[in-house]
């Protein structure tokens, strides 16, 4: 098999300023500049978009779903959550 479909780039899409970049998919492209263009064609064709990031698929470092201890929070951690505290005070700004 001597075909190439070119390298894979993961695509992150920002809908508007102030929003986070969100992973939306991937494109095949020869290099970073073409990857950005292909990402624009595929992921900003209809959706609003102000910024795109692309990163080579193999450069994304991932946690492993099969290592359960990594995200374990089994013991009581309510002291670091809002719900671990009484309801907020309802004071007026000024009497």
């Amino acid at each position, binding site marked *: 098999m001597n075909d190439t479909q070119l390298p894979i780039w993961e695509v992150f899409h920002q809908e508007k300023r102030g929003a986070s970049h969100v992973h939306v998919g991937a494109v*095949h*492209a020869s290099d970073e500049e*073409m990857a950005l263009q292909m990402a624009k064609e595929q992921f900003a064709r209809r959706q609003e978009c102000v910024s795109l990031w692309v990163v080579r698929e193999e450069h994304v470092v991932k946690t492993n779903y099969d290592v359960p201890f990594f995200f374990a929070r089994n013991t009581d951690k309510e002291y670091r959550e809002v719900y671990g505290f009484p309801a907020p005070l309802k004071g007026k700004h000024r009497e």
Partner: protein
Amino acid sequence: MNKNEAIQTYLLALADDELILGHRDAEWTGHAPLIEEDIAFSNIAQDEIGHAQALLRIYESLGGNDPDTMGFLRDADEFTCCHFVQMPKGDWAYTIVRQFFFDAAEIIRLRYLKNSTYELIRELAAKIYPEEQYHLLHTQGNVERLGDATEESRRRMQRAVDEAFEQALGLFEKIPGEDVLIDEKIIPDSRTLEAEWLQFVTPVLKRSGLQSPVIETNGTVESNVEPLYGGRQKKHTEHLHKIIEDMQKVYRMIPGAKW
């Protein structure tokens, strides 16, 4: 030819170029070298056809027929597009080179039209310009990559340049009535456009490892080939007749039918 007629003639020539090239570009939809490029090139096709429609709307507002009538009920020998856009789509190299040459010409023309003294043209040019900037980014990027990537790509790209260069100069064939509009600063002179186009594309081709048929002296670039003219005078290739037949087939199929 009075001013109004000259403007209509000019708009029609530009619209015909855009429509016919867009039609050709869309022949790649479903057949491009990479799925991503299917998407990208279909976008260019849509933009070009959309530009034709927008130009024809101005034509209509000046007392002409509506865009569909002009595009789909007009005979081939009433079109005024250059031969360049009529040529068959060829291989991907020809398609990329043609589109790059066209986009470069568009960008240069639109820079002037954005400052036209004629409001409707000025406003439309400002809308079209960013889309053409993006096309150029894509097509120039492809020329630069494919120009000297592999032996085959270099051979195909050089052949495409050799074929397309004289055809592309046809974009700058004088449009009847031009002089009236140049004097009023409504449009730029075709000779100016051609000179700027040669200045623009020559270094890009050179950087991409491609030869162009030009003579460079002291910073000026002149073409060394005879331009392929005729389109603006309604003298066309057999290819245009086939395109128009294909394009109007359904529209003209049943008299009076709406689609």
